[in-house]
């Protein structure tokens, strides 16, 4: 319990090696439970309004609009086969969006934790690799990292370099995805705290004026994370569509 309650803030781990705002394992998952409770509560209310006719229930309408937005994003970026990724992208979007919203009002949010964000990034990039292998086969997917097909000496000299760069690039995608989200949400918290300290003597919560920007960050960060995942999926699965189109042309 000492790890969960420390530094005078609930569910924050004691300082030391993990930094002054490090949160314990249970702390992160306590806030994640709050995020999931909000998600399932909202979806549960929305679900009551589902019907075979046009939804008149406002939460159901919002849920439908969100679904259509995610589907449009997947289909427009990945292609016609992108519809099957709506569940994955939707889950990421919901957790990040609600997690970011929670960060506006509570002392902590899962998306303000680098480890949590890294978990999501690893999941997204790992899923992209799985889909890449599924679409192109293991050899085809690995060959994809080697760039364009070169002949002769160039294949020996350049392709391995491109392969190494692409592998590092794939690894760095995890870092960029997780650090971007962590930096924006955690940084937003820190900025509010710092600015509140500026107005502390005059009893003016200056940091709260950042709320509109933070509100924008909530939406934009959820969008960026999922949008980039769609782009990564598109890069590794676009051959599948071309292949299907080739088949369709051949059959025609």
């Amino acid at each position, binding site marked *: 319990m000492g790890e969960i309650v420390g530094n005078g803030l609930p569910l924050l781990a004691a300082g*030391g*090696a*993990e*930094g002054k*705002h*490090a949160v*314990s*394992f249970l702390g*992160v*998952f306590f806030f*994640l439970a709050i995020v*999931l409770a909000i998600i*399932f509560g909202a*979806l*549960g209310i929305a*679900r009551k309004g*589902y*019907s*075979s*006719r*046009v*939804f008149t229930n406002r939460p159901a309408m919002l*849920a*439908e609009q969100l*679904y*259509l937005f995610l*589907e*449009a994003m997947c289909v427009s970026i990945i292609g016609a086969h992108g*519809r*099957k*990724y*709506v*569940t*994955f992208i*939707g*889950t*990421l979007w*919901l*957790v990040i969006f609600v997690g970011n919203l929670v960060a506006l009002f509570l002392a902590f949010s*899962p998306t303000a*934790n*680098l*480890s*949590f964000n*890294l*978990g*999501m990034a*690893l*999941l997204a990039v*790992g*899923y992209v690799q799985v889909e890449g292998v599924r679409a192109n086969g293991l050899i085809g997917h690995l060959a994809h990292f080697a760039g364009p097909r070169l002949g002769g000496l160039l294949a020996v000299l350049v392709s391995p370099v491109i392969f190494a760069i692409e592998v590092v690039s794939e690894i760095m995608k995890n870092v960029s995805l997780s650090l971007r989200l962590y930096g924006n949400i955690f940084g937003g918290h820190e900025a509010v705290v710092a600015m509140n300290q500026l107005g502390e003597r005059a009893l003016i919560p200056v940091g709260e004026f950042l709320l509109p920007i933070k509100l924008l960050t909530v939406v934009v960060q959820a969008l960026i994370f999922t949008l980039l995942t769609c782009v990564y999926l598109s890069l590794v699965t676009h051959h599948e569509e071309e292949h299907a189109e080739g088949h369709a042309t051949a059959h025609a």
Partner: protein
Amino acid sequence: MSTPNATTPSGSPAAALVRTVIGLAMMAGGFYLSQHAEEIPFLAFQKALGEKGVPLDLGITTATIGVFLVLLPIIRVFYIKPLEEAILERNTQLERTFSEAEELRAEMARLRSEYEERIAQTEAEARAQIQQQIREAQQMRQQLMAEAAERAEELLARAREDIERERQKVLAELQLRVVDLSLSAAEKVVGASLDDEQNRRLVTEFIQKVEAAG
């Protein structure tokens, strides 16, 4: 409008179950890693990162992946699938309604065409019947006219015969009368009664001669 696709990353229920089990195992493993990070040698870098202000806990990372593996099928079942079904049902109903409307329109066009055809046919039949009636009426008129003319001719001939007969009768009577008057006049002139039968014959012959001469 979108058409929900049944193919999803959740795949079959068995695959979802396997992922859920793996997810739960990763959550438990993540908790263990987080709690025993200092005892595990390859996680020693976390401490160094933490000292540099990068609070990384691979236990949380592992458990996060586990949570998402469990969460994906739940979101699929709880949110995506019912919504896809509702949208699909709505689209199906709309398509059915459009199809029914299209069928009704085609049916209406067919009925209209039939109706117009029937009206045209009825009009043609009516026109033919009217023409037939007119022809029959004209025939009947001509027949009646012919009958009337024949009848008139017959009546005229009979009237002429009657007139002729009456004229002959009147002439005969007149002739007798003239004879009688002539005899009476002659008796008065002669002063003696003549033989009645003989005189009558003489006068009649005389009158006939006069008639023939006239």
